Structures are given as C-alpha cells and as structure tokens.
C-alpha cells in the first residue's frame, strides 16, 4: 500500500515555479529521502505535504485520503508529523512541555475540565505526561525533561524536535535536514534513531538530507529534485549514481 501519493503537484509564487508537475509515491513503512541541490524545492515540498503551502495544482493523498488544501493542524491529526529545518521549538517552555504539545490531539479536556479539575482530566493529564516522558526517553532525553528548550545544546534540540514529532504517534514523519550541524558520532546515532523509529514505532520516515552517506546508509527509497522537478527516483544506489543527479550536484559545486 502507498502511504503518501503525490500527483502532478505544482507550486508557484508569482512568476516563480517552485514545484513543477511533480509525482511520486512512498510505500508504508519506508525510510525515504528527498535530495537535491539548494533551492530544488525540497522544503517547499514538505510545506505542501503538511498543509503550510497550498499547491497551485495537483493532489496529495495520505493513507488513501485526499489531504490537499487541509490546514496544517488537520494534516497533523491525520498522522503526518514534521520537524523544521531551523528547529522550531517552544523555547521558553520545558522539554517535557514541548513534547506535551504533540499529545494535544489525543487528549480531550477543555475549559470546564480544567476549572473543576475533574478526575477524567487528572487521569488524562497523568497519562499525557507519561507518554511525553516515553517519547523523551526514546530519543535519550529523559534527563533534561524539566529544562527549558532554549537552554539545551544544539544536538539535544534536534532530538527534542524529533521526540515531539514522534509523540504525535504519526504514520509518517518528515524530517527536514535532521543531520545539519551534527558531528559524525551524532550523525551515526541519528541514523540509528531513524531506523528505530521505523522498526520499533512503525512510523515511516522521509528525510531531506544533504549528507549523501547518511542518505545511502538509511534510506530505501530516494526522490531527487532539481529546480522543482523530479530528476530521478528509486533505490539510493541507483539514484545517487544517476547522471542527472551527479550533474545537478556538480553544477552546484562548480558554482558554489
């Protein structure tokens, strides 16, 4: 079964075509990667899939349901979680409170429950905190639960964002450059974590990544983009050696 299907998707900002007639599909339970030089439209594609951008044309289906045009919160509730390229944590709140945000869709208590501290509300609150701690423990951050997110070291902030996303219990997790700024040891741990997310939590993963060794190491499926168009798709070994992909990256290196 295909978990995510993208069909003839286009996105325009005025005269600029960011995504052009893009189609691909990712099966359930896969670790996939989007690669491509800077400006290829990878992050825009994430924003389209998660509802932050509205496509100019085309369709996105998730678990068989059409999600094109749904607002971000509705997309998230259907089981699509994401992280952000530049880490978007709630900086002044504690690590635990950050993760608690993802428990929101799976809890119910409203204003009246809060005012009267109903037994149901207390039970739910205790359960949510436990879930959040479990997610923190999964990425190895159980010891910093009470520290405010803004004071955590960079590597921990990346992990906290992942913990927050998996606490949503999504079917698919989109990671935007999760390895950016990490050292080799942290990158190896990240590759491990990504595999554990898929194997133990049964969450599919799509990452945007520039580190080709990480891409080759963890992903089973790769989609290569250049100037908003798909230039190759398939197993990493094939895509990374595809002449158009090599050309796109060489072109970038020759310029940059």
């Amino acid at each position: 079964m295909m978990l995510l299907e993208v069909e003839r998707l286009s996105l325009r900002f005025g005269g600029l075509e960011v995504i052009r007639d893009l189609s691909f599909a990712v099966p359930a339970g896969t670790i996939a990667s989007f690669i491509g030089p800077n400006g290829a439209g990878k992050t825009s594609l994430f924003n389209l899939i998660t509802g932050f951008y509205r496509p100019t044309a085309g369709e996105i289906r998730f678990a068989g349901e059409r999600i094109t045009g749904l607002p971000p919160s509705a997309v998230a509730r259907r089981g699509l979680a994401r992280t952000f390229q530049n880490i978007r944590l709630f900086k002044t709140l504690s690590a635990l409170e950050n993760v608690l945000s993802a428990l929101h869709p799976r809890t119910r208590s409203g204003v009246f429950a809060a005012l009267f501290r109903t037994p149901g509300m207390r039970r739910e609150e205790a359960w949510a905190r436990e879930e959040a701690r479990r997610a923190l423990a999964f990425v190895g951050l159980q010891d910093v639960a009470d520290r405010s997110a803004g004071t955590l070291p960079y590597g921990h902030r990346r992990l906290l964002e992942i913990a927050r996303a998996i606490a949503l219990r999504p079917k698919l997790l989109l990671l935007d450059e999760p390895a950016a700024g990490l050292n080799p040891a942290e990158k190896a741990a990240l590759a491990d974590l990504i595999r554990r997310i898929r194997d133990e939590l049964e969450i599919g993963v799509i990452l945007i990544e520039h580190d080709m060794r990480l891409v080759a190491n963890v992903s089973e499926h790769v989609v290569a983009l250049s100037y908003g168009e798909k230039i190759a798709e398939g197993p990493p070994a094939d895509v990374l050696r595809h002449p158009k992909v090599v050309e796109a990256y060489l072109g970038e290196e020759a310029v940059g």
Partner: protein
Amino acid sequence: MTATSFRARASQGATAGLLLALFLFPRVASNYWLDVFTSAFFYVILALGLNVVVGFAGLLDLGYAAFFAIGAYTTGILTTVYHVPFLLTVPAAAALAALSGVVIGAPALRLRSDYLAIVTLGFGEIIRITAKNLTLTGSASGIYGIPRPTVFGHALKTQQDFYYLLLILAIVTYLAMRRLEHSRVGRAWKYIREDEDAAAAMGIDPFRYKLLAFVVGAVVGGLAGTVFAVRMTAIAPESFGFMQSVLILLAVILGGLGRLPGVVLGAFLIVLLPEAMREFASWRYFLFGALLIAMMHFRPEGLWPAGRRKMPQSGRAALNGGDGR
C-alpha cells in the same frame, strides 16, 4: 531543592498574610478606602480576564470594555425592566458576552491576528454608541435604580458587603485562571503564542484556540459587568469607552503580561496610582501613554520580577509565526 521549597513556603506565607490582611481590612479602613479597594478587586477580575487574551494567547483586544458593558447592561435591563432576579441575569450576561465574542472574534482571527486589535476597538465604539442611542439602554443617561442583589438569602447593601463580594470573586477568578493556565487549554495558548506554525504542526488548530481565548476573556468581562451594575445601581455609556479598555490593558501590561501575580499587581497600580497623584489628574492618560511606550522599550515582560519565563521576544516571528519574513 531546599532553596526552592523555602522560597515556595515563603511565598505561600506571604500570600496567606496578604489575604488575612485583606479580610481584616474593613475593620480598620474608612469607607473611602474600602471603596478604593473594592474598585481594585474589580480591576483585578477584569485584568485577569483580559490577560487570557493578551497574556496567554498573545492577542490584542482594545475593546474589552464592550464585554463589560454587555454584562452590565444585560443585568441592568433584566432587573429593572423585566424584574428578573440578579442571579438569573448572570448566565444570560455570560452567554451574551460569549456570543458577541464569537461574532467579533471569528472574522478577525481567521485573518492576521493583529486585525483583532482594530476590530475590537471598533466593536467597543459600536457598543458604546448603540447604548447611547437606544431607548432600551436608557440613551445617554443610562440605566438607574438597579436593585441591590440578594445572594443566597443575604441582601447585599453596605460597602462592606460589596468589598467582601468582590474580594471573594477576585480570589475565585485568580484560582480559576491558575487552573486554566496549567491545563491542556492553557498550554495550547502558550504554544500558539510562542510559535503558531510549530503548534499547528502538532495538530493544534490556532484559530480555534485564539477564538476560545477571546471568548473566555469576553465571558469574564461580561460577568464582571453584572457585578458592576448591581454595585453601582446606575450605569451609563461613558463608563464603557475606549479609555476604560486602555486602563484594563494597562493593568495587564504593567504588572506582567501572562503572569498572574503581575496582573494583580498591575490592577492595584492603576487604581492606586491615580489616588496617589490626584493633583495631576489631567496628566493621567498622558502618563499612561508614556508608561506604555517606556514599558515596551525597557521592560516588556512587566514589573513583576522575572521568573524562569520571559515574554516571547524572538523577533516578529514569535507572534507572526514566520522566520525571515
């Protein structure tokens, strides 16, 4: 560990002492000071209500007095024209305030949330002008002869009665706000205030929670209005103008946006400061304006000593929900 528990116990002790002093105050105070403090409790309730909108959710409401007016007029009209007992007017006032909160909040909040500021300002004026023009609301002279209420068999008449009524209501409001702040709903507001996009990516619908904050604020304002009507026994449109809204906003900002003890401090300051400088009465709003500017430049988090948390200051991104734009 011991340091924090000592601090917690010290602050508990201070709170208990303060409350005891407030409960004993009528024994020593003159009627004049009783009245001043009753007003202060009143502004505590209003400021706590507005704080849900401005402090918790990070939205600007410039017409808060409109909800206060809706509550006051509902009670005023129902008790004088239809002879409805006071307590029955309370749910009616709350419902009407909530309804107008939805009608005003929904169109504005669907867009950029800063439109809410000007829409609420306009709404405040609509309510005031409408109250001034309708015969039902007594036109410019307002409604008078609102009967004193009977609460659980006890008729409230004296200044002392109202002092205690408002003191208790202020305490109840404070406790309710504290529960709300540390609940699932309160957290959702904080997430949206800190980073709207990240909150949405976690399945929280920003529009829904902003509207909820706005409506909760409206209901608290409406409830305060009902009490205002029976305490004053007469209400007029000019009590609900823009300056009233600014005054309540000032209370919220002065003490500490989003921090409950700070909001209480702010409410006391806006009532007690003018008392302290009566001879400069005409300077009042000029100084308030200058104070607002100065606070935003030098201490946007308010006068209450900074704790662990700080006002979201991370660029326009914090409220705008974007970075680099």
